């Protein structure tokens, strides 16, 4: 063998031994660039699922590794970097029975932030370890160790506590210093001061051979507060990862007709004048003009109107409309600032910036607590110093006051409740973007609903079934079975038929034609069947030369809508309906749902104005909406919710997302929110009661390290247990 001829395989054994045929022939992946692909797998739930997914992926020749994460319900795959590899992996998982979705760049950013979670866990671990050790050493002191033994115990405690505090409490120092530098006080200032002062005083007492050292208290404080911080972080991280998965539901792509035929391109790559293909059932990706094809467009996501618009060559169309019946080609226009989408985005931004900054309960508590504690401690220091002239004693007492006022219960009061409540809401199908929205939800007095897609299903249903003869029913159903048009589907759902219709032909944008025996039959648009187009959504059936028969459709209330409205009203909330649709339809729906106050023909800007007006009148409004036209109103409301079926813009501006699209979740979430707020206030009261008992003792100079340890642990544990009751609520 010539040395210059490359060997087909690096390993000579592979050349000598023929492939046994047991495995699929593996590609030589050593030179291939590899890539990590993350896919969401919402249906994995057990050990068997994990095995099935990992095994089948590992058997692919182009995959070198696959690992399922059951907690996050996703799989991470290391795969050869080839175009469209995601689609092939998704198809493979689909065949196994696990529908998969691609996750975008947001997930990679999440992997980055997970480092923050791990960092926090490490600090928590160190604080816990050091606390337990120092507590054990302290037991001998509490039990009465004296002289050299006590001094030695204090020194060993110091050796453990000081490095542990420096490492574990660093986040508090950093945040407290940041606040002080901007001449503000936050919760972390008294926390840092209490930790630093107690550690400093303890070190001094240890060197002087004094009675009391508070190393255990300083560490316990750090440990309990880190638990609160960790819960808070976990709550937000879970919400963020679920939100990024929802964002990936709507992949922003368009099919462009280029010189080399059709290609799928991301929206950013589109230029003005590009020709795009839009199949029936797809949403229009951009604003533009129709250059070929006839169809009907459903504008409900954009304007709230449910009546489809017929479009033909030359018609101006808007991004976000749903193409119902026939394929279209459109020329992209006005991609810059002028698209409706951009205008809505601007409205959302204005609404968000004019929203008042909300002061959370924790911030309110900190605003009272931080100065009060500092003044008390300072008063104790000056009082004892002046009265006794013993400044060492004065510092000791001031430190004891700071420790015993115990911000750890306060630090746990809010995060523990929010973690329990958001975990509970997530399990029942509601996603919270942050904990503050739960507090806001507890305050609402008015609920404003959007109509189309929120209070209604957004799908047409036949309304005049009883006026149609049996004969026409069977004919229409037989025709409708052959079409994917949403109105045809609604007819096929309403009636069944085994009639034979021959020569069935679809006329995109017009309807379906066929023959019943020798009689020509048409099912389709009014004009095509020789009828007058009316105000309502309709298809017409024309059999031979007889007069056309109309099938009328209307959007329907969600089955749980009226029940939800009643429950909200029973909870003392005012309910309103705000829609972009025509007055007749809105009035009907409002009456059916039991809503007295309604408004029709509202443009996106008018919806925002309506909410602003309610805000100014002193109402706290929960807005529930799903359309593009609701996005700005959602951002303007005190707090907002979107069903998961909503468009991207709405989901991203809503504070909460109803994952299972069930309106009753609004009532349940409201109940959980009210209960959470009550728990938070109870927790603050528990912490306050502990302080009322222990602070006078500390001020009087009776506080001992043992008392501090007991007060701190019992109050933290009571607060945590009280918070967990949220999870058990009915």
């Amino acid at each position, binding site marked *: 063998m010539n040395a210059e001829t490359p060997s087909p395989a690096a390993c000579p054994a592979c050349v000598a031994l023929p492939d046994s045929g047991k495995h699929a022939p593996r590609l030589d992946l050593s030179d291939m660039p590899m890539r990590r692909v993350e896919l969401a797998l919402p249906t994995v739930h*057990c*050990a*068997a699922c*994990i*095995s099935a997914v*990992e*095994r089948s992926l590992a058997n692919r020749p182009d995959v070198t590794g696959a*690992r*399922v*994460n*059951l*907690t*996050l319900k996703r799989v991470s795959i290391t795969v050869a970097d080839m175009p469209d590899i995601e689609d092939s992996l998704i198809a493979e998982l689909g065949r196994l029975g696990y529908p998969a979705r691609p996750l975008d760049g947001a997930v990679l950013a999440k992997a980055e932030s*997970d480092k923050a979670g*791990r960092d926090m*866990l*490490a600090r928590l*671990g*160190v604080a816990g*370890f050091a606390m337990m*050790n120092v507590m*054990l*050493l302290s037991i001998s002191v509490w039990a009465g160790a004296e002289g050299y*033994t006590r001094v*030695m115990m204090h020194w*060993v405690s110091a050796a*453990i506590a000081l490095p542990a505090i420096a490492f574990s409490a660093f986040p508090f120092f950093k945040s407290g210093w940041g606040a002080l530098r901007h001449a503000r006080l936050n919760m972390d200032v008294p926390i840092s001061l209490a930790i630093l002062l107690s550690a400093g005083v303890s070190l001094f007492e240890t060197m002087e051979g004094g009675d009391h050292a508070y190393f255990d208290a300083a560490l316990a404080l750090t440990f309990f507060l880190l638990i609160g911080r960790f819960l808070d972080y976990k709550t937000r991280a879970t919400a963020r990862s679920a939100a990024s998965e929802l964002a990936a539901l709507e992949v922003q792509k368009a099919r462009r007709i280029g010189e080399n035929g059709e290609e799928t391109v991301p929206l950013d790559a589109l230029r003005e004048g590009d020709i795009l293909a839009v199949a029936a059932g797809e949403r229009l990706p951009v604003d533009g003009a129709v250059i070929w094809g006839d169809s009907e467009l459903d504008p409900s996501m954009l304007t709230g109107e449910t009546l489809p618009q017929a479009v033909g060559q030359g018609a101006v169309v808007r991004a976000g409309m749903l193409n119902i019946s026939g394929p279209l080609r459109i020329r992209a226009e006005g991609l810059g600032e002028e698209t409706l989408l951009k205008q809505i985005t601007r409205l959302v931004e204005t609404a968000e910036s004019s929203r008042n900054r909300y002061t959370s309960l924790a911030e309110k508590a900190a605003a009272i607590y931080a100065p009060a504690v500092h003044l008390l401690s300072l008063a104790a220091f000056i009082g004892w110093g002046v009265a006794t002239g013993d400044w060492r004693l004065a510092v000791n007492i001031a430190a004891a006051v700071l420790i015993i006022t115990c911000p750890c219960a306060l630090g746990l009061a809010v995060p523990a409740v929010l973690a329990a409540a958001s975990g509970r809401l997530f399990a029942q199908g509601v996603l919270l973007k942050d904990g503050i929205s739960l507090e806001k939800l507890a305050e609402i007095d008015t609920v404003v609903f959007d109509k189309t897609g929120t209070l209604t299903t957004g799908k047409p249903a036949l309304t005049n079934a009883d006026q149609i003869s049996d004969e026409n029913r069977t004919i229409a159903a037989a025709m409708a079975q052959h079409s994917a048009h949403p109105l045809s589907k609604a007819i096929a759902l309403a009636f069944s038929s085994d009639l034979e219709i021959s020569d069935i032909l679809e006329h995109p944008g017009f309807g379906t034609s066929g023959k019943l025996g020798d009689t020509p039959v048409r099912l389709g648009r009014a004009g095509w069947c020789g009828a007058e187009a009316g105000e309502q959504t309709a298809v017409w059936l024309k059999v031979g030369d007889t007069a056309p028969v109309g099938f009328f459709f209307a959007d329907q209330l969600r089955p749980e809508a009226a029940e939800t409205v009643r429950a909200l009203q029973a909870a003392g909330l005012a309910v309103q309906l705000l829609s972009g649709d025509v007055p007749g339809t809105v009035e009907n729906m409002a009456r059916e749902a039991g809503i007295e106050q309604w408004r029709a023909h509202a443009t996106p800007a008018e919806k925002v104005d309506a909410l602003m007006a309610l805000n100014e009148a002193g109402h706290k409004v929960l807005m529930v909406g799903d359309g593009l036209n609701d996005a700005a109103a959602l951002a303007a409301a005190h707090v907002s919710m979107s069903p998961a079926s909503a468009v991207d813009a709405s989901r991203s501006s809503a504070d909460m997302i109803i994952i299972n699209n069930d309106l009753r979740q609004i009532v349940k979430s409201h109940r959980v929110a009210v209960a959470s707020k009550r728990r938070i206030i109870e927790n603050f009261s528990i912490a306050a009661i502990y302080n009322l008992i222990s602070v006078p003792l500390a001020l009087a100079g009776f506080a001992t390290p043992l008392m501090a340890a007991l007060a701190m642990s019992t109050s933290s544990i009571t607060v945590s247990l009280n918070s967990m009751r949220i999870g058990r609520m009915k």
Partner: protein
Amino acid sequence: MNILAVLIPVSLILGGIGLFAFFWSIKNNQFEDPKGNAERILSDRFDDSPDGD
């Protein structure tokens, strides 16, 4: 009381080993998927290696 001079270092070393193991497990992503780990232990597949067969 001289026994303390031995016992305290011993307890600190033992605790230190535990702390080191905790750090090692965080670094090895062992807290990334608690639910998955709870299920994986039920399957024979992972008996010999955490990555499966």
